[in-house]
């Protein structure tokens, strides 16, 4: 994975740095390079590969003699992975001063003018909703990574100072499973809480709002090309089902009538 250009810990301070951050954020948004949900998904597959990395490190000649050092070094690589996720998901749009946010909203909040006023407004809204989803998505990824970091800390604490009667870890798999257990336990606790429910709901809602507006914009294009739109297809399907239900009712009534008259069913 490439190193992020700007770490979460080094927020831009000078006006030049702030503008540079703004343009970087704008560029990543319009070119589709912004961090997405898939980034967090990759984290899990990387965590799977983590077992293999651990096995390789522990197989080195001097590793088993100083397992604490080896395992803590391995934990550091997992930590670095999480830091990268955090940095990539830093909120460039929320960085001080507020002029960056204001500038973005000033752009997307502009009313449309002239002959293409409606289209302009649609595109502006699409842009606004996309930035809102981005913000939610980054917050989601950040929170999830934060939970994972907490679990990693517990794992490190165990390695550094195991509880008195803890069963010694005898294989790379034992060590790896302990790491997974800590992660899963903390995650489950978090995922059952209200904070997570709000974060999850907010992210899904923001994505839905963006996609809904995207449908509208796409429908406009399809209509211009004389292609069926989603709205038209929906209307057609809804009518088809209504007719189907009516047909089923009529068939039932007919069968009942026939039965009543003693006719064949």
């Amino acid at each position: 994975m490439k190193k992020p250009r700007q770490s979460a810990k080094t927020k831009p301070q000078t006006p030049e740095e702030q503008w540079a951050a703004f343009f970087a954020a704008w560029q990543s948004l319009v070119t589709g390079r912004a961090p997405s949900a898939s980034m967090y998904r990759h984290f899990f597959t990387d965590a799977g590969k983590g077992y293999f990395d651990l096995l390789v490190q522990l197989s080195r000649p001097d590793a088993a003699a100083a397992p604490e050092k080896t395992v803590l070094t391995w934990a550091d690589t997992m930590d670095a992975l999480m830091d990268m996720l955090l940095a990539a998901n830093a909120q460039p749009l929320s960085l001080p001063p507020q002029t960056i946010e204001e500038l973005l909203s000033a752009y997307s909040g502009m009313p449309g003018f002239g002959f293409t006023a409606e289209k302009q407004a649609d595109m502006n809204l699409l842009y606004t909703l996309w930035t809102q989803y981005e913000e939610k998505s980054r917050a989601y990824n950040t929170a999830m990574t934060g939970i994972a970091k907490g679990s990693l800390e517990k794992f490190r604490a165990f390695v550094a100072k195991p509880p008195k009667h803890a069963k010694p870890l005898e294989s790379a798999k034992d060590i790896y499973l302990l790491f997974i257990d800590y992660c899963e336990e903390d995650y489950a606790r978090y995922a059952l809480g209200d904070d997570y429910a709000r974060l999850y709901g907010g992210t899904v809602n923001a994505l839905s709002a963006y996609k809904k507006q995207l449908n509208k914009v796409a429908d406009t294009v399809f209509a211009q090309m004389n292609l069926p739109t989603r709205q038209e297809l929906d209307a057609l399907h809804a009518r088809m089902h209504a007719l189907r239900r009516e047909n089923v009712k009529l068939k039932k009534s007919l069968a009942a009538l026939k039965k009543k008259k003693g006719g064949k069913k």
Partner: protein
Amino acid sequence: MTSAFRLDPEKIRAEAARFTTRLAEGVGRLHDIGVIPAGVTEKTAIYAEDKITLYRYKNPAGKTRRGAPAVLVSYALVNRPYMTDLQVNRSMVRGLLAQGLDVYLIDWGYPDATDRFLTLEDYILGYLDRCADAVRAKSGQKKINLLGICQGGVFSLCYAALHPAKIRNLMTMVTPVDFHTADNMLGNWIRHVDVDRMVDSIGNIPGDMMNWTFLNMKPYRLLAQKYIDMVDILDDAEQVYNFMHMEKWIFDSPDQAAETYRRFVKEFYQQNRLVKGRIVLDGKKVSLKNIKCPVLNIYAEDDHLVPPSAAVPLGKYAGTKDYTALSFKGGHIGIYVSSAAQALVPPAIGRWIADRV
């Protein structure tokens, strides 16, 4: 100071060698798997409509006894019903047939965009009702036994409440009834989701999206650890075969018809209307108190999708005086396929029905 480790360099090297050897050899074994069937027991389609098909299973041990109690299995819309008939030695359907039951199963099919406007009524009062009628006609039994699984169990509860005259006995398996219990992770996640907005924007809910949700309930185990564990079994052809059967089933997920999903999530998950008696289908109120037939409620003690706390309350809300609960030590999936489940669940169902024919 106590060390967290007791590592033997030789054992670690052996572990690494074993891992890489199994991986290398396993690739060949995975190539040899071939096509994995979707269900193993012979069956005949006895009714079909739109994308749904009603099957009757043939008893591999011989002809089904005349007058054998007819059991209609109503599976969930999520995932495919061949989970009940995954492999010859892991088949709940075969277990039920072995109990002398006449087994029917509804395959809901794969909804597409033309099914976006299918409603809960279409599924419960339409498809399910017509399948029940088809089973009644085929078996010559006025009342049949209905076995609802997971979401299919919720449908069965609604159906039995509205059509008591057609149901002799009702069985629910891993079926949520109270959707607002503290350990219901799915229930928690959906609380703040604007379902209307979601359905309006994407229409049918993609199966992949459902899968991703389920995987996220235990992301480290299901996305990372599971495939590390898989390497451990790669040198055992039978275990690999079993694993791949399950893998196929897990990711064989139909899309969810948009309007049905909308109402199911809003009214059951978000508003918990089933236990409040506030589900209304085609103008008729669904009251669990109307379920007066015998009820067998089977739940899994380690179910992370439908925790026991969600399933057990059926006993409190159902109107029956003949209520039996059966708990299984296992999870949501193990209840269909584990050897313990094979030994416990179908025989228990067989005995329970036999006592109530």
